[in-house]
């Protein structure tokens, strides 16, 4: 039971980041390789604010606000200006952003590893087992935010406009949808999801530049599930977390990075669009 909660927590964090990647991909067909970097940058921010003595009720919202600002800057300074270029320019732009953010992290916070005080201590009795409160918090919070994002997309009117943009950008523009606003909102939500994911990650593990790998795992989760499907992101995250845990348990930790990648290769060979992705002939990166 303990292990299940832990895996659910990790999967939740991956799902959060993967949801952000999928959302950005849906609205602007850009694969965001910088998601992990954004998450850990925000984790560093929160940790620094907490270490400076602020309470987490202040630290978290401030970090999320900073994240929204970063998202807006990313969109208006970079993404908006490369609209219409061939597909892999967007990918390279996120690579550039990733390199930039890594540099910022190293300069601003040093290359050190930070541990933060977990919010909750002790254990909770659940389903007849002693579970660490932190793990439960991480799992609940992560899946809660994922659920919120998916509900917004499915049930609200702004979500309707996002779905219209996903399907056909030109037609959406014709029907009066302000594409700028929608894509910027997608980036903001993605970065906020990353920020939450980073914060939750800091609750259960070390925060350092090496932790950026959660972004790679999230990307793999999104790819397994299909780059334009939220359900796929969820299933992919669970699969990635499960496979990682399995390998950690039965083999050496060194191979834990390889397991999700191998899983992804197997799935992509069988279904090149991911489990729930839409099959398209259009060349995309």
């Amino acid at each position, binding site marked *: 039971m303990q292990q299940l909660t832990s895996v659910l927590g990790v999967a939740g964090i991956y799902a959060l980041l993967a949801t952000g990647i999928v959302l950005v991909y849906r609205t602007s067909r850009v694969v965001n390789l910088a998601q992990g970097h954004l998450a850990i940058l925000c984790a560093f921010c929160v940790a620094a604010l907490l270490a400076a003595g602020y309470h987490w009720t202040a630290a978290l919202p401030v970090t999320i606000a900073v994240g929204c600002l970063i998202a807006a800057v990313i969109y208006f300074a970079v993404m908006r200006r490369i609209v219409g*270029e061939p597909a892999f320019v967007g990918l390279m*732009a996120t690579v550039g952003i990733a*390199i930039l953010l890594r540099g910022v992290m190293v*300069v601003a916070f040093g290359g050190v590893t930070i541990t933060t005080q977990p919010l909750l201590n002790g254990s909770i009795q659940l389903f007849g087992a002693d579970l660490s409160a932190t793990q439960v918090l991480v799992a609940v919070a992560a899946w809660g935010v994922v659920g919120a994002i998916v509900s917004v997309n499915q049930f609200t009117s702004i979500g309707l406009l996002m779905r219209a943009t996903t399907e056909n950008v030109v037609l959406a523009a014709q029907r009066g949808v302000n594409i700028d606003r929608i894509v910027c909102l997608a980036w903001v939500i993605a970065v906020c999801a990353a920020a939450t994911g980073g914060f939750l990650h800091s609750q259960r593990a070390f925060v350092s530049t090496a932790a950026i790998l959660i972004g790679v795992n999230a990307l793999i989760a999104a*790819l397994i599930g299909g780059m334009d499907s939220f359900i796929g992101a969820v299933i992919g995250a669970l699969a990635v977390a499960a496979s990682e845990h399995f390998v950690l348990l039965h083999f050496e930790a*060194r191979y834990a*990075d*390889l397991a999700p990648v191998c899983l992804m290769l197997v799935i992509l060979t069988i279904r090149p669009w991911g489990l729930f992705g839409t099959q398209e002939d259009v060349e995309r*990166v």
Partner: protein
Amino acid sequence: MTDGRARAPAVRRPPTLHTSYRQTFRLWRGKEWWCLLSGIGVTLIWPFLVNAFWLHLSNLALIAVVATVGLNLLSGNARLVSLGQAALLAVGGFTAGILGAQYDLPFWLCLLTSLGTGGLTGILVGVPSLRLKAIYVAITTLALHFAVTTLVSIYQTEAVRAQGIVMPIPDFVFAKLGDSRPWFYFLLLVVALVIVAALNLERSYIGRRWIAVADHEVAARSAGINISVAKLTAFAISSAMVSLAGALGAYYEGVLTAETYDIQLAITSLAMIIVGGVGSVLGSVLGALLLTFLPYLLDAAMKPAGIALSGGSLNGIHSIAYGTLILLFLVFEPLGLAAVWYRIRNTCMLWPLKYTPLEAKR
């Protein structure tokens, strides 16, 4: 018999105007021989112009040029974005290491074998990529990266049981490549061969097939191009070149460690082809040169300003510079340094006339 008409003044032809089909695929399309010759001249006397530190950097830059030109063939011309650069460098390096250091094979044989192993690795990663679309190809190469780095680190800890493999000093024809200066000329020779090879590939039917497949697979297929063969040759040739660069790097550094091949290397290589100009050999050369020298230029620029930073922060500043440079180029000049160069050259050649060529590439 006098000619009543006045002779028309000689018209300066725009540099991009080709008047025959043959001209469009000549190896050297320019007309300014003096430019090329003076460039070659400066390069030849370069070791006598700079001090040892910059010469060492120049050698590293030349090795990077070989690797980048190789990557450009794959990711620039065939548009198969590859994150496996570090893995291929490792393959080349360790081939040279195992054969050269442990079995004492001659230098040139090790280089050739690294070409072979690189090509095979490329085909190995190319086969599963045939069915996949662009981002998935990138992720497959990322899988290659993880696999290879794990393998070499296992090899290093298990088989070598040391921190790294020490490479012998190579013996090349008439000189021992022990010092920076002979290395420089040797690397110049290799770079020249690689550039000529890449240019020839680009303008031959092989290169054109890559571009056709990259542009529109369905149309290429209906034109009779075998997509699988085209992609696999792209992978093979590109990987062979990168592997060669890896072997050269291993010999040059003198010590081969598995830790040098991390994902940052792959990202930096992609940055080199973006900043230089995707799809152009000149672009990869310029990009490799700029990005290899960049951190040290930054340091040299920051020293007079009195900014002294610790090693870690310096790394951060380098990353910030890299990232900003990539973004600036992507937003303002997606065709990279090569396009900037062609623009400057066209302006100089045509001044004071103004001419906007239809395609900015050549």
